[in-house]
């Protein structure tokens, strides 16, 4: 036999894509287009936040230029009412918003999880008291409660973060409580208790790993809300104070100078892209979970 017209043997065909796939292995949810976009955008903003002083053309606080100059080749996003470069301010705003929103979601998650776990695990009057309190906080429209807290503590970025945490923890408490309630009667928990494990030990070593998935999804979905609420407070003057380059506060400046559209447009776009990216990620994560849990997360 001379050259065979047959294709190469089957194993070779199969091995090639297999090997390549192993290298490029990306967990299934992240291969969805929305998630890919979301992750890319968030990654880009993280890079910007880290390297803002190097990327930004100018010091975000320096008042070096003509005031309220329209976007041009020198100032891509124009300058604001104090002659500061809007592009530099938008870029450095990422350094304020991203770390703070992650921090406050983590805080809310921890507080909510501890309270929810205590309520679910101990039941009885502990459950009643804690959950009634959570319901009360839940019943307030977010920004009105946050506004009252932030105003009462004094207009500062730190207090705005506290205010958003105060508003956000109840949803975690509710979710964790329901997860703990359903886990409490599971055989593995009963087994652990029969082996003599204490209440908190059961919670931390047996229930926590099983409950963390939905909680993290809720946290991912909540990140976008956290950014919106925090920048909303700053927009109202109850968060970041001048001259901090914070997006919400910058949009408020834009509202003062609304005929110079570039002052408010770009920081708002920054908020929009970050929140959208967070929501893309959170949404995909939720869809990746089993639809029933997904529904529970959405409702809580």
């Amino acid at each position, binding site marked *: 036999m001379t050259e065979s017209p047959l294709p190469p043997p089957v194993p070779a065909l199969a091995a090639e894509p297999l090997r390549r796939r192993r290298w490029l292995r990306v967990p299934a949810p992240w291969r969805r287009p*929305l998630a890919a976009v979301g992750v890319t955008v968030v990654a880009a903003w993280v890079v910007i936040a880290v390297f803002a002083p190097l990327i930004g053309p100018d010091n975000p606080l320096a008042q070096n230029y003509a005031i309220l100059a329209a976007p041009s080749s020198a100032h891509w996003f124009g300058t604001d009412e104090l002659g500061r470069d809007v592009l530099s301010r938008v870029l450095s705003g990422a350094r304020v918003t991203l770390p703070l929103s992650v921090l406050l979601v983590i805080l809310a998650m921890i507080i909510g999880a501890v309270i929810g776990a205590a309520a679910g695990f101990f039941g009885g009057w502990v459950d009643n008291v804690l959950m*009634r309190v959570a*319901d*009360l*906080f839940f*019943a*307030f*429209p*977010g*920004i*009105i*409660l946050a*506004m*009252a*807290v*932030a*105003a*009462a*503590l*004094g*207009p500062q970025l730190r207090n705005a973060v506290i205010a958003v945490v105060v508003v956000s923890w109840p949803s975690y408490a509710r979710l964790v409580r329901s997860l703990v309630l359903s886990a409490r009667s599971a055989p593995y928990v009963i087994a652990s208790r029969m082996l003599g494990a204490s209440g908190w030990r059961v919670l931390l070593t047996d229930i926590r790993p099983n409950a963390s998935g939905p909680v993290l999804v809720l946290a991912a979905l909540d990140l*976008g809300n956290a950014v*919106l609420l925090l*920048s*909303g407070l700053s*927009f*109202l*003057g*109850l968060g970041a104070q001048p001259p901090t380059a914070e997006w*919400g506060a910058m*949009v*408020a400046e*834009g*509202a003062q100078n*609304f*005929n110079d*559209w570039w002052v*408010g*447009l770009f*920081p*708002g776009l920054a*908020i*929009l892209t970050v*929140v*959208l990216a*967070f*929501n*893309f990620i959170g*949404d995909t994560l939720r869809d990746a979970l089993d*639809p029933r849990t997904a*529904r529970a997360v*959405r409702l809580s």
Partner: protein
Amino acid sequence: MLLIGITLVAFVVTHLVPGDPVAANLGQAAVGDPAAVAAFRHQYGLDQPLPLQYLRYLGDLLQGNLGISEQSHRPVLADLEEYVPATVELALFAIVASLVVGVGLGIVAAAFRDRWPDHIIRVVSLGGVSMPVFWIALVAFYLLFFRLGWLPGGGRLDPAQVAPTHLTGLYTVDALVHGQWALLWSAVRHLVLPGLVLTIYTVGMLTRFTRASMLEIMGNDYVRAARLKGLPEHVVILRHVLRPALISVITVAGLAFANLLSGTVLVENIFAWPGVGQYAYHSAVNLDLPAIMGVSLFIALVYIVLNLVVDLLYGVIDPRIRLS
């Protein structure tokens, strides 16, 4: 119960924090004068122990007395009577508009599941959910008022106009009832811009939820049965899927309405809409405690009414609930 709880939370939050209403409400000079400070504290009962203050507040509340605003020096109830109708008008407009648009888009998305209309609607509604409402308000203000001049930019009427004869406080309704057509036109035009912004704010949530609950119901056997017996697709979707889906949509609509109230704080701020949102903002910034408590009570009341309305609507949609 909820009412009392809300007053308690609002009371604790506003009273236990370090913020000092004296400094916020008296001028610089007066703060230096101990007599003026003491008089102020006494006038508003701030010199008494907290539990006593709270009990006194509850006692007054039972008599319909919400206290005197430290800012406007008027009864909080009178302030609320002035501001509530403006916000109610705005919120009703927005919730009706977002129900129509949101449920409509949700139906389309569910009917075209995983095809391009669905993808577009999903991305757009996520975009709506992700939009900072104060920013979209600013953009709308700039484009539709400042640039194009299609719509008025703020307030409820043109500056020269006098409010229509008082009936409900909703200018559109009042003007309509009394046949004041010029006022009606003006009120509607002023309502559209802030109303649309709030609609964008809530429509995404409703769209997503309508789609999700319709898809869930489409998995039922009776839907397949309806299809198999040859009903046209639109009848299946509208009559067999939409109706049960509406039950959960209405639950979310209640949430969306509460959300709207949050949105009004930011939107009213930009469009100079004289409503509860602005009132809440100014009282929070100035630590006007009776006013903050009043707003909280109003919100609690809205929740209670909302829950009632939602329960009644369940009955309208689902005859089984009506019977039981």
